[in-house]
């Protein structure tokens, strides 16, 4: 069950709805409350992304099929080696407060990204990399080639919303409401919600809806109840386990997006009980991924094959054989490694289904002779003490657990997973995976242009990671959003955005 809305209809300003909707009306959206102040540069949570992106726009948008569609930028193209990208900027864009929009705003925004250490752009651009040669062009001069730059300045990298040039660091969107987008922020309260009214001077035209009301919740259950009982019209994101009722409701339309969001089970390769890759492989073979997907997502998930290339990516090499549960093989690997009755603590962060996943890992692994002890930790202690090994010193990811489960959100391209989580000296390399061959393969992948070349490079990495198994990737779960069937043309991205420019009452 569950209607899938994966047709690429374009996003934000770029695309358009395909259903005819009525003019007028209000949409009431249920969302988790933003976790912190609405600082577009520093925000880290999905709820803030969606709230900010109602009024502020991106250069381009990453749709549900991971194809980029235009935003403030109308088009973009790289130079030959991908070290310079030129963006053509849309004309007729206005700031809501009346000041004229200019390419300087884009340059200033990118400078703020550099200064703020944006995780997607760090190492990709530097101060001064971005210039605006004329009022219709912005040029990115990269220190090293990058074939995926447009993704890194798209809605995939939520902090890259374009803000005015005089937008001081630390300014809060609700304190200085502005933007170029279809909605004007009328009121905002971090605990209760936000209201938006139509931006009459938006370059994209007149939105069907007059108003959008955003209500904040602390928990999923009341949001689902709100949608079911008609107190809300849409819910930004829900999980299968909490919102299963929505999947089968005749009054509700569900947006299901394949995504690259996943959980990574890491094992320290440098010390401890998992230095032997056969042990790591054994754990991989002990996982019952199908059962996991069934239990945790009722099937709303893709299988993972112990590498970060999610099935959603067009360049993922799907011919690499899927690792299946094989207890006999796992046991055999264990005895080959001379390990019996391995006891370890599985550290898991307290987030969504992760504690349950930990339980499933534990019980699956038990069959292969692992004796795992689940320790569910709050985000603070988990990220501070368990997750990430002792380098670099600052920021102090001081954790050094030998076994754990950590969460990774959706990205339009897997580069950050490959880089930060798996490359030598990667900042999130909790497994301490260190393989020069891998680093070389990664470089080759990054340098490759075109889907076929990328797929070939990806296949190598996939096989290599499957063999070394420093980290296990059990699944890539679907992103789910839902709304009442009385509304249509609501668009969502797997990173938590909900775009409403074309949305309206049926």
């Amino acid at each position: 069950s569950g209607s899938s809305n994966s047709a690429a209809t374009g996003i934000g300003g770029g695309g358009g709805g395909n259903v005819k909707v009525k003019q007028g009306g209000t949409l009431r959206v249920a969302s988790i409350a933003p976790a912190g102040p609405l600082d577009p540069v520093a925000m880290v949570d999905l709820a803030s992304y969606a709230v900010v992106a109602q009024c502020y726009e991106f250069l381009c948008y990453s749709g549900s099929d991971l194809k980029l569609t235009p935003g403030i930028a109308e088009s973009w193209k790289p130079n030959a080696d991908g070290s310079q990208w030129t963006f053509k900027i849309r004309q007729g864009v206005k700031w809501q407060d009346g000041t004229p929009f200019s390419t300087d705003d884009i340059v200033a925004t990118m400078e703020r990204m550099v200064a703020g250490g944006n995780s997607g752009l760090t190492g990709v651009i530097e101060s001064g990399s971005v210039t605006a040669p004329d009022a219709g062009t912005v040029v990115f001069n990269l220190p090293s080639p990058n074939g995926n730059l447009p993704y890194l300045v798209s809605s995939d990298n939520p902090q890259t919303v374009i803000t005015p040039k005089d937008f001081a660091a630390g300014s809060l969107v609700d304190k200085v409401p502005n933007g170029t987008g279809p909605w004007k922020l009328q009121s905002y309260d971090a605990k209760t919600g936000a209201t938006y009214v139509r931006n009459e001077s938006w370059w994209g035209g007149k939105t069907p809806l007059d108003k959008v009301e955003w209500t904040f919740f602390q928990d999923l259950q009341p949001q689902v109840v709100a949608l079911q009982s008609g107190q809300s019209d849409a819910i930004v994101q829900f999980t299968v386990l909490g919102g299963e009722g929505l999947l089968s409701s005749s009054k509700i339309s569900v947006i299901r997006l394949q995504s690259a969001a996943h959980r990574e089970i890491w094992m320290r390769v440098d010390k401890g009980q998992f230095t032997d890759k056969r042990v790591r492989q054994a754990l991989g073979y002990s996982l019952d991924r199908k059962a996991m997907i069934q239990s945790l997502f009722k099937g709303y998930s893709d299988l993972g094959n112990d590498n970060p290339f999610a099935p959603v990516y067009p360049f993922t090499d799907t011919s690499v054989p899927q690792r299946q549960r094989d207890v006999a093989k796992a046991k055999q690997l264990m005895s080959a490694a001379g390990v019996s009755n391995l006891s370890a603590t599985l550290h898991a962060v307290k987030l969504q289904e992760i504690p349950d996943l930990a339980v499933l890992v534990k019980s699956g692994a038990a069959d292969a002779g692992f004796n795992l002890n689940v320790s569910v930790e709050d985000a603070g202690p988990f990220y501070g003490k368990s997750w990430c090994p002792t380098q670099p010193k600052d920021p102090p990811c001081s954790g050094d657990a030998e076994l754990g489960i950590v969460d990774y959100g959706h990205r339009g391209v897997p580069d950050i997973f490959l880089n930060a989580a798996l490359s030598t000296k990667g900042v999130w390399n909790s497994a301490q995976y260190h393989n020069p061959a891998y680093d070389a393969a990664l470089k080759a992948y990054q340098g490759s242009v075109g889907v076929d070349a990328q797929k070939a490079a990806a296949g190598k990495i996939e096989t290599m990671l499957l063999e070394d198994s420093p980290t296990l990737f059990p699944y890539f779960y679907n992103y789910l959003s839902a709304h009442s069937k009385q509304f249509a043309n609501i668009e969502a991205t797997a990173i938590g955005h909900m775009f409403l420019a074309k949305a309206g009452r049926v």
Partner: protein
Amino acid sequence: MVRFIARRVALALVTLLLLSVIVFAISNILPQDVGRSILGPFAPAPEVAALNHRLGTDKPLLDQYAKLLKGMVTFNFGESYQTGQPVGDLIKSTLQNSAKLAFLAFLLTVPLGILGGVVAALKQGTLVDRVIVMLGLAGSSIPEFVTGTFLVVILGLELHLLPTLADWPPGSNIFQQMHYLLMPALALVLVYFGYIARMARAGTIVALESDYTRTAVMKGLSRATVIRRHVLRNALLPTISVIATQTGYLFGGLLAVELIFNVNGLGRLLVTAAKAKDLPVLQAGVLVIGIIYMIATLLADILISWLNPRVRLGAED
């Protein structure tokens, strides 16, 4: 009487001071880097230090405690780590909603509880008595998040009797708001009915067995008059203090209920603050709840002593 009130208030102030110490101590049991926990593991150290400096969390504990004390007097508790809003404002707005909910729950529970207790006492030992007592016990034994959720499913999603969430449309008048608050209030009523009924029952039984009731019966008064004039008045005195205590604890019960019904109240604020380790909000919120409890008991004490001539007029002779 004046002496009594003055003494009670003075004691309450001392307690308040201790309360602030307790709250501060609990939230500082473990040395922690506040800036780091706000900015997360990836923030550069200088930024963390700067934030700590701005928040004053790099100062010695004693200074921080002094700041909390000052905040208590001026109702200025600094800003929320989480959202940057002034904590005082957060508390004020959420407290208002919690107070509405608590008030409604109170309005429903107290008469019901007293009625139930008195009826049970009058029918002591009968089926009616047992049913009331067991209902109360069962209600107060099941955590309110469970009863609340079942209420949502049954009254809201199945029967469509009441709004499932306490999110009233903006501009609702107080009665409309109460309509939205009715279900969360019912969840609380289920839990607190039992306590009050129990006390009212015990008080009534004591009064029924007392000598003065015997005197009244022997005067030839009708049973109704005896109960109305002689039993109830004395029976309900001890109930008042229970009600006061429960009012205080009501705010503790709000934690779960406000989450389930998405009430923008103090309880929900505190749970989210706790999860985010938003210490200024936590400290201020816990203090405010403590203060409410203290005011409630103080008022109850004064009310009881005022209703009880022995205390009120004690000093006269």
